[in-house]
């Protein structure tokens, strides 16, 4: 060990600075945004970013394991929002929300668990019937199928619920706030950010510490080798879709709570932005997707704060193009040198 310390005397600084540059960048961006738009909007940006991060995770995991952009993923998010709304309105009836803390918490858990489970299953079904048969087909085929599935989901929901926005029960009153000393933050914001971060941490632990998570990483790196080591590829891929879709479902629940209304075309726009987040963070990289989600949240809310919401969408897209042209491996990925 002593020798390595001597020979790499210059290297640690290099290595540290190279590895932490993306994080420094994100923190710096956060500070700049905070200064630009003020604390209230900043919290808003973090919240929206958290939702994007949850959806981005699904994109990045699926791409990491089968190198397919799951176009339908954004619509899974949307369906999740609708499923959550459906569950809650069925349970609550038309009723009011004069529920105590206990029942509210229980209801929230039910909404999460139910939606995540249902969305997970939906994701597995989509993979099983629309993507798996085409695993060895020319690249165009699963892409086109994914678009087809996306359209099916969108239009099915549109047919059932109509094209207009639908109200969702906001179990956590938007006006409730938490006071810490002189700082006041909306309870809903804390909830959204907290639950998102919690889910992301749980995912990270799962991928890094469990056997199944290891199988997922192995399959993503080298499918054949993983198979030779006894990993059941089909199950692993199905698991990846389950988790990714469940997270998107959670994002859908949270979306409904935060905004109070949902619409059938929610998935399309959000999907594009979440995908940008995944690419920005480094496609296939879970932490990257989370970081990317927050950055996209910053961009969108900053643009909106200056009254340029629509151009904000164009801006997010510009971020995608610039990333793909100048740093295709994203913030946390490695630079590749190949032209092939």
């Amino acid at each position, binding site marked *: 060990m002593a020798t390595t310390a001597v020979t790499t005397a210059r290297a640690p600084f290099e290595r540290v600075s190279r590895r932490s540059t993306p994080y420094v960048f994100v923190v710096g961006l956060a500070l700049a945004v905070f200064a630009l738009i003020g604390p209230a909007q900043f919290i808003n940006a973090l919240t929206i970013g958290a939702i994007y991060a949850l959806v981005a995770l699904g994109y990045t995991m699926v791409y990491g394991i089968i190198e397919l952009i799951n176009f339908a993923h954004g619509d899974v998010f949307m369906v999740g929002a609708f499923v959550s709304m459906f569950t809650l309105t069925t349970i609550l009836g038309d009723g009011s929300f004069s529920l105590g803390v206990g029942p509210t918490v229980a209801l929230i858990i039910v909404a999460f668990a139910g939606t995540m489970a249902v969305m997970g299953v939906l994701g597995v079904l989509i993979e099983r019937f629309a993507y798996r048969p085409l695993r060895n087909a020319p690249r165009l085929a699963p892409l086109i199928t994914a678009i087809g599935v996306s359209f099916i989901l969108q239009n099915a929901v549109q047919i059932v619920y109509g094209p207009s926005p639908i109200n969702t029960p906001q179990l956590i009153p938007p006006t409730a706030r938490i006071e810490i000393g002189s700082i006041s933050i909306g309870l809903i914001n804390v909830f959204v950010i907290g639950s998102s971060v919690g889910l992301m941490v749980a995912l990270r632990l799962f991928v890094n510490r469990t056997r199944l998570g290891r199988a997922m990483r192995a399959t993503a790196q080298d499918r054949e080798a993983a198979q030779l080591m006894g990993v059941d590829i089909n199950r692993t891929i199905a698991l990846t879709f389950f988790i990714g879709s469940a997270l998107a479902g959670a994002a859908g629940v949270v979306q409904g709570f935060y905004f109070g209304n949902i619409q059938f075309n929610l998935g399309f726009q959000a999907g594009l932005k979440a995908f940008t987040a995944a690419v920005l963070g480094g496609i296939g990289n879970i932490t990257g997707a989370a970081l990317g989600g927050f950055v996209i949240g910053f961009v969108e809310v900053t643009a909106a704060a200056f009254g340029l919401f629509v151009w904000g969408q164009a801006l997010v897209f510009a971020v995608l193009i610039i990333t793909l042209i100048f740093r295709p491996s994203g913030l946390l990925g490695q630079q590749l040198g190949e*032209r092939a």
Partner: protein
Amino acid sequence: MTAEMTVVEPTPAEAAATGILLRANRVTRRFGGLVAVRDVDLVIPQGSIISIIGPNGAGKTTFFNVIAGITDPTAGTVEFRGRALISRPRRTWLEPIGWFLPALTVLALALVVGAPSAGQVGIGLTGLIAIGLLVTTLVIAIVRPPWYQRLLAGAGIIRSARPNDVVMAGIGRTFQNIRLFQNMTVLENVLVGMHLQLRSNLVDHLVSSRRQATEEKDAVKRARDLLALVGLKGRDDELARNLPYGDQRRLELARALGNTPALLLLDEPTAGMNPRETADMTALIARLRRDLGVSVLLIEHDMRVVMGISDRITVLDGGERIAEGTPEEVRRNPRVIEAYLGKPPE
């Protein structure tokens, strides 16, 4: 670096004369911490057949990929026909910025001058000029006229040759795992190989001009000649994917010959072949050198082929060149023996 020297193309008769076709100097390729190729030199005289051998993972294919323009070297250069072809790229990120510079300058100027206040006309005009400049720079970047390349070189931007530049210089290649155009016919595959030999342009295509028609006819004829040369006569309309393995390798060879290369890079041309097919392929390669004057750089594992056909052999191991010489010299070289068979027990 002799950038502007032109070299007169040798006739097949002159091919036997001494002249250096390709010179690789200290080619190095790193992938992060892994050094795949380290300081490898190679000289290919005109009209010769050179083989590269070495254990698996020795860096042979990476070296090939550097010469073929698929991978940029981390260090070192490759000269072909006296001109610099491949070297480590420098400051390539500067180039895209240069494309947007004129348009952005115009936009910035317009803001400074206060064009927005001139209303629709001002903004519209600015936008048009900016887009026009952008399109112009993009087109220039695509066409890459010589003055543009000199401009880049002057700015210190060095771009290594891309695969199609390498082909244009006169190098053809085949791949270790065959990369034919599977769903195109045998004839079409060879025609694509002749892509740079055909001169008709977009206008010719659209109006189906006389020049296009004659050129296509001649091309088809020449393609058929090439196919006959490699032994695939009369199979024009078969899909490449339906060919038996040995024929696929021959087709790839015919395709690589389409651009009348001076040098052929063959990556394991006899892999997966039985002895008879191997002998056929070896004879074919020798015939190509004899009849077409093509020089050949070969990666091979089959020692009979290597020893039988090579003028000189270079041995790589662990990314480094450990031996170079005639087949006799290499066969007796102790380091080579050790690399292949391991150190003899003490």
